[in-house]
C-alpha cells in the first residue's frame, strides 16, 4: 500500500498504554494532523513514525516497506524523513545556511547543488537575507522558518511536525500556520502534524485524527469533524457544543420538551432506545419572535447569560417548558438583554447523534 500506514500500532510504557491499536493510512502527499489533549499519545505516535521510539505492538510501513515493528526498527537516520521540533532544534553553532545545508551535505550532494537548493528554499521561507546569521541572532519566528527550510530542503519522504508553533506568540502562530500550509501546497510532502490546537490543525490539514487516551477517536476532514463528530470527546474537544439526551423511537426522537422526526436528522439513526446528540451553537438561531414552524424546531424561553466575543455573541438560552439550557452563537447584530424572552430555532439537519 502506498503512503504511510500504521497498523494496530501500540506503545506501552510500564503498565500504561501510551498508544493502543492505532490504525492510520496517510496517502502520499496528504497532510494529516494528530490532534488531542496533552498525554493522549500523539507525540509518542509521531516519535514512533520518526523511529525515535520503537512500538511494542503493531507496525509502521512506508510505501509497503516495514519501518517499525516490536522486533526492531529502522533507525531514524535511514528513514529519509524530516522533522520540525517543538524546540526548533536549530543548531546554534551553525549559521542559517549551514543549518539548512546540513541534511544535503549528509546526502553527499555536489556543493553547487547544495548551494542552489539552500538558496531556493531560503527564498521560499523569505530568509535569504539572513543566510549568514547565527540562530542566536534570529527571532522566534525566523528560527521557525529556518527549521521549516531545513526540514523540507531534503525533500523528505515524510515531514513530521511536533507542535512546531507552540512556542510562538499568537500573531506569529497565525502567520506560520499559513506558511506551513503554503509550503505543503508547494512541495506536496506527506506530512504528519502533532498539535493540541484545533485551529492549527484545521488550517493546515487535509484530515485530522483526533486522539484521546492513546487511541484514535475519529479521523476526518476538518469540516466533517466539526459538523459530524462521532463521539462525545470529539464533539467537545473540537469547538463547543450542546449535548442532549433523548430517546429514539420508531419515527421520532424524543427530547425533554420537544421531538424530532428521525428522518429529519442529518445522519442515519439505527436502533431505538436512549440516544445522545450534539448540537453546535452555530446550528441554532435566537429570535425575538416566534418564527414560522415549518422545518425548524422552535423553543420558547429566555436569555440567561450573554458574553460578547467580538465575532459572535455567546448566549445561554433556557427553554421555558423543559428548563434545558443551550449555548447559542449569534451574529454581533443580534443583541438580546439578559432576561429577555426569546425563541430558539434548531436546524434538525445539524443535530448529530454521537456515541458516548
Amino acid at each position, binding site marked *: 500500500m502506498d503512503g504511510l500506514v500504521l*497498523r*494496530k500500532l*501500540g506503545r*506501552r510504557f510500564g503498565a500504561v*498504554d501510551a498508544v*493502543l*491499536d492505532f490504525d492510520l493510512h496517510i496517502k502520499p502527499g496528504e497532510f494529516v494532523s494528530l490532534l488531542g489533549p496533552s498525554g493522549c499519545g500523539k507525540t509518542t505516535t509521531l516519535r514512533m513514525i*520518526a*523511529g*525515535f521510539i520503537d512500538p*511494542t*505492538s*503493531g*507496525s509502521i510501513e512506508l510505501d509497503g516497506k*516495514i*519501518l*517499525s*515493528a*516490536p*522486533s*526492531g*526498527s*529502522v*533507525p*531514524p*537516520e*535511514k*528513514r*529519509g*524523513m*524530516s*522533522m520540525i*521540533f*517543538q*524546540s526548533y*532544534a536549530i*543548531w*546554534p*553553532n551553525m549559521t542559517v545556511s549551514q543549518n539548512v545545508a*546540513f*541534511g544535503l551535505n*549528509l*546526502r553527499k550532494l555536489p556543493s553547487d547543488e547544495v548551494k542552489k537548493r539552500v538558496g531556493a528554499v531560503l527564498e521560499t521561507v523569505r530568509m535569504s537575507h539572513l543566510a549568514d546569521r547565527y540562530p542566536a541572532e534570529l527571532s522566534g519566528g525566523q528560527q521557525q522558518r529556518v527549521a521549516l527550510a*531545513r*526540514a523540507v530542503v*531534503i525533500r523528505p519522504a515524510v515531514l*513530521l511536525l511536533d507542535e512546531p508553533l507552540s512556542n510562538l506568540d499568537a500573531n506569529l502562530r497565525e502567520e506560520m500556520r499559513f506558511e506551513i500550509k503554503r509550503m505543503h501546497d508547494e512541495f506536496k510532502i506527506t506530512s504528519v502534524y502533532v498539535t493540541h490546537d484545533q485551529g492549527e490543525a484545521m488550517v493546515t490539514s487535509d484530515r485530522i485524527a483526533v486522539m484521546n487516551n492513546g487511541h484514535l477517536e475519529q479521523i476526518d476532514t476538518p469540516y466533517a469533524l466539526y459538523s459530524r463528530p462521532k463521539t462525545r470527546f470529539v464533539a467537545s474537544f473540537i469547538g463547543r457544543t450542546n449535548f442532549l439526551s433523548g430517546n429514539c423511537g420508531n419515527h421520532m426522537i424524543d427530547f425533554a420538551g420537544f421531538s424530532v422526526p428521525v428522518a429529519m436528522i442529518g445522519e442515519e439513526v439505527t436502533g431505538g432506545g436512549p440516544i445522545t446528540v450534539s448540537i453546535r451553537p452555530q446550528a441554532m438561531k435566537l429570535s425575538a419572535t416566534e418564527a414560522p414552524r415549518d422545518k425548524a424546531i422552535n423553543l420558547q424561553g429566555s436569555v440567561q447569560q450573554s458574553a460578547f466575543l467580538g465575532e459572535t455573541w455567546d448566549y445561554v438560552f433556557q427553554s421555558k417548558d423543559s428548563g434545558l439550557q443551550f449555548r447559542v452563537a449569534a451574529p454581533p447584530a443580534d443583541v438580546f438583554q439578559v432576561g429577555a424572552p426569546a425563541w430558539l430555532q434548531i436546524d434538525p439537519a445539524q443535530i448529530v447523534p454521537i456515541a458516548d
Partner: protein
Amino acid sequence: MTSVSHPAATTWSQDQPVKARVPWHQRLQPANLLWVFLAGILVVLIVAPMWTLVVSSFTDAKTGGWTLQNYVEAYGKERHITALTNTLKMGAVVVVLKLAFGVPLAWACTRTDMPGRNFVRYSVFGAFIMPPYLAGVGWILLAGPNTGWINRVWHSLSGSTEPLVNIFSFGGMVLVTAIGGFFLVFVLVSSAFEMINSEMEDAANILGAGPFKTAMKVTFPLVMPAIIGAALLSFLGAIALYGVPALISIPARYPVVVIQLTEFFSFPLRIQVAAAYSIPLLLITAAMLGLQKLILRRKGYVSVSGKGGERRIVKLGRWRWVLFAYCFCVVALSVLMPLFVLLLAAFSDSWTTGFSFSNLTLSNFHYVLFEHSSSQKALIGSIGLGIVAATVAITLALFIAYIVQRRLIPFSGLLAFLAVSPYVVPGIVLAIGFYAAYALPPIALYGTYTIMALAFITRFLPIAFTTSSAGVRSIHPEMEEAVRILGGGRVTALRHVVGPLLKRTLAGGWLLIFVPAAQELSTAIFLVGPTTRVVSVVLLDLSEEGELEKLAALGSLLLIIIVAVVAIGMRYLGRDFMLRRS
C-alpha cells in the same frame, strides 16, 4: 504473530498483521559497537586494576594461593597500626583547618563588601595551581628548624638558638596539608553561597527575623550540605596526599599510611602486603562518600541547586577590614609566602645565606634545564602526560556521559558508576592497583609512559565525567534528533552538534584535569621507571639530595608552564571557569 515477542502485546492484539520484521542490516547502527568498546576500556582502566588489587591482597606471593597472611603482615606490627591512627588524626585536624580557611573566605568573597575580593579569589586560585609539595618546600625554606628564614630572623632578633617554628612537626604537616587543599572548600562553599537567593533571606526578614537569626536559621543551614561535603572531601584528600608527608613526615617522626605504603614498595618488594594495607584507605573513602550522598539526599537541601536569584551583599562597615586582614593572612600563609621564598630560592646561589644581590643567579635554571640527568625529560613527560590524560579522559567521558544521559543502552547507569568510581580510590592506592595489574610480566608495562597515562586517565575520569555529564544534560535531545532524522547517525550528531556546543565546557574540564595531572605525584610514585620520571618525582629526589635551590627552579618552571596554559584557557573561556564549577 511470531515476531511480537512482547508478552503484554498478546493481551490486546488478537489479530496481528503479517509477520512484521525489519531486516537486521537495516537496523544496524555502527554506534552500537562503540558502546561495547567503551565498556571494554572501562574494564581495563577501573575494573581490572581494582580487582587485581583486592585479589592480590589475599594472594600468597610465593605459592599464588589464597591467604590472609598479607593482612597479618600489614597490621601485625604496632608501627603499622600507629601509622593508620596517625593518618586519621592528621586528617581530622586538617579538615578543621581547611574549613577555618575556606568557609570564611568563601563567605567574604561571595556575600560581603569586603575590599580586595578579587585579589583573594585569584590568590585562592593560585593555591589550586601550586602543587602541595611545592607549598611544602616553600614552608621548609620558611620554617625549617635551623635554616628556615623565619627562625633565622627570630634568632637574630632574640639571640635565642631555639627555633621559633618547626615545620617538621605534627603542626607543620597539618598546616602545609591544609593550605594545599582548602581551595576545594572555597569552591564548593562559594558556589553554595552563590546559589542562595536573597529572597529566601528576605522571607525570613519579613517574618520578623533579624540579620543574625536569618544567618543562623536560613543562610547557614542552606550552605551546610556544601560544607559537609567539602569537609568529607578534605578529609579524603588529606589522608591520601603523598607529597607533603614525603617531605615532612619522616623528619617529623610522624609515620602515616602513605609513607608506610612506600616502605612496602621498597626492597623487599611486597605488593600483596601493600595491597592489603591500602584496603582500609579504600573502605574509608567509600564509606565517607556514601555518607556524603546520604546527607545530601535528605530533602530540603535540594533547593540550593535551584537557580541563583539576586543576592544582597552584606555591608560589614568597619569589620570589612578585619575580615580582609584574616583573608590576607590565609592567602599569605597558603600562597604568597611559600611562593615568594620558592621563587627567591630558585634565583639564589644558596638559600641559607639570605637575600643579597651577589647571591642572585640563573644557574639553577640552567642546571635543571640542561645539566641534570632527568629533569628536562621529566618536564616534557609531565606536560605530555597532562595533555594526554586530559584529552583522553575528556573524550572518553564525553562518550560515556552521552550514552548515560541519553539512556542508549540498558544498564548504562553501570557505565556511569564505573566512570565516577575512581573517585573513591586514593591516587596511591590506584597506583598499587595498576602496578599489580599491569606492571609485571606478561603485560610488563612497568616504567613506561603508557602505564602512567592509563593511571592518570583513570584518576581524573570522574572529574571529566561530571563535567561532560553536566554539559550533555544542558543540550536539548531534539538538537541531536534533528541530525538523525535528517540522515546523520549518532556519531555525526556528536561530531557536528554535541561536540561543538560543548566546546567551552569540555575545554574547561580539560584544564581542570591538565593542571593536577601535570603535577600528579601520588599516582606516579610507584609507576615511574628510571627513564620515565615526571617532575613531581624529580622534585622529591632533589629534596632528598638537599638541592633545594634547584628544586625551587624546577618547581618554578612547572608552575610557569601551567600558569601559561591556564592563562590561555582563561582568555578563551572567561576568567571564572574554574572558580564556578559545581
